């Protein structure tokens, strides 16, 4: 007959430490969400850079692929929720941050679409207009529409925020470094023309989500392999 031997106090403490370590190391994001967003935002940003630099069009707005990515993201979220066997304390807070990030990006798109037209209407009501004036008088003045200058810099600024928070909270260095570097890219983009802002935005998406996504995916697959 088996007889249980009582644990010593030191063994009890060691067991507690060991279990806490196991619980901490058990969490691995599948990485698919990061890969998805990293890919679509990088592609859309870099393509926009080339479109603006070499003046060509695909006949549709490349940023629609970012909008379309919401559909697989919903599917991924549902699947991950079902397959997650453990929920960490910070998961709900981080999910809320990413949701608010999505809403903020959406809001900024709305701002970009609405504000120039509304501004044009207001200044027209006031009886004046914006004009492009060449300092060397090489060309005649041209009336122009109101626009939001270098707005992609603001997108880059917002890309950094949830990425850095996730990196800090999850102690996941690739996202932490990604977030910090992206703040640097934001500062850089304040001094560049819009075309280069898109290129910098592509780099931001690459280091914030795509590269961390690859690392997360590799870790996840390695863990799955170890569990087989």
């Amino acid at each position, binding site marked *: 007959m088996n007889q249980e031997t009582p644990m010593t*106090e*030191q063994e*009890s*403490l060691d*067991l*507690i430490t*060991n*279990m*806490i370590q*196991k*619980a*901490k190391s*058990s969490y691995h994001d599948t990485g698919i969400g990061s890969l998805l967003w990293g890919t679509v935002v990088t592609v859309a940003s870099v393509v926009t850079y080339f479109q603006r630099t070499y003046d060509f069009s695909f006949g549709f707005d490349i940023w629609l692929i970012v909008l379309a990515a919401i559909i697989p993201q919903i599917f991924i979220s549902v699947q991950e929720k*079902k397959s997650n*066997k*453990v*929920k*960490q*304390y910070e*998961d*709900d807070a981080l999910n809320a941050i990413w949701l608010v990030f999505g809403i903020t990006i959406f809001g900024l798109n709305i701002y970009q679409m609405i504000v120039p037209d509304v501004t044009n209407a207001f200044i027209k009501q006031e009886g004046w207009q914006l004009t492009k004036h060449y300092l060397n008088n090489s060309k005649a003045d041209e009336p122009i529409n109101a626009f939001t200058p270098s707005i992609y810099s603001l997108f880059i600024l917002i890309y950094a925020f949830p990425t850095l928070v996730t990196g800090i909270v999850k102690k996941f260095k690739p996202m932490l470094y990604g977030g910090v570097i992206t703040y640097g890219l934001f500062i850089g983009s304040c001094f560049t023309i819009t075309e280069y802002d898109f290129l910098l935005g592509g780099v931001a998406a690459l280091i914030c989500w795509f590269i961390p996504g690859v690392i997360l995916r590799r870790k996840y697959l390695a863990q799955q392999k170890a*569990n087989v």
Partner: protein
Amino acid sequence: MSLLISVKEAEFTFIKEKTNATAGNLSVQVQKLKEAGYIDVTKQFVDNYPQTTCKVTPEGVKAFEAYVKALQAYLQVGKNN
């Protein structure tokens, strides 16, 4: 308890895997902790499969903290003697 204390909630299968306990043995332990009011146990069906989720209660956290403090105090006394 040590495993559950560091997460918000965990499935029975996760605890079984991490503790290397048998399902029967773990069920008994889970039942004892539930009766003591240290954990909440939720049973539901997900995609036609039964799913048992365990979560530490505030009483469980207090009891665990008291236990760890007692252990630490005991070991500290041993070191000082």
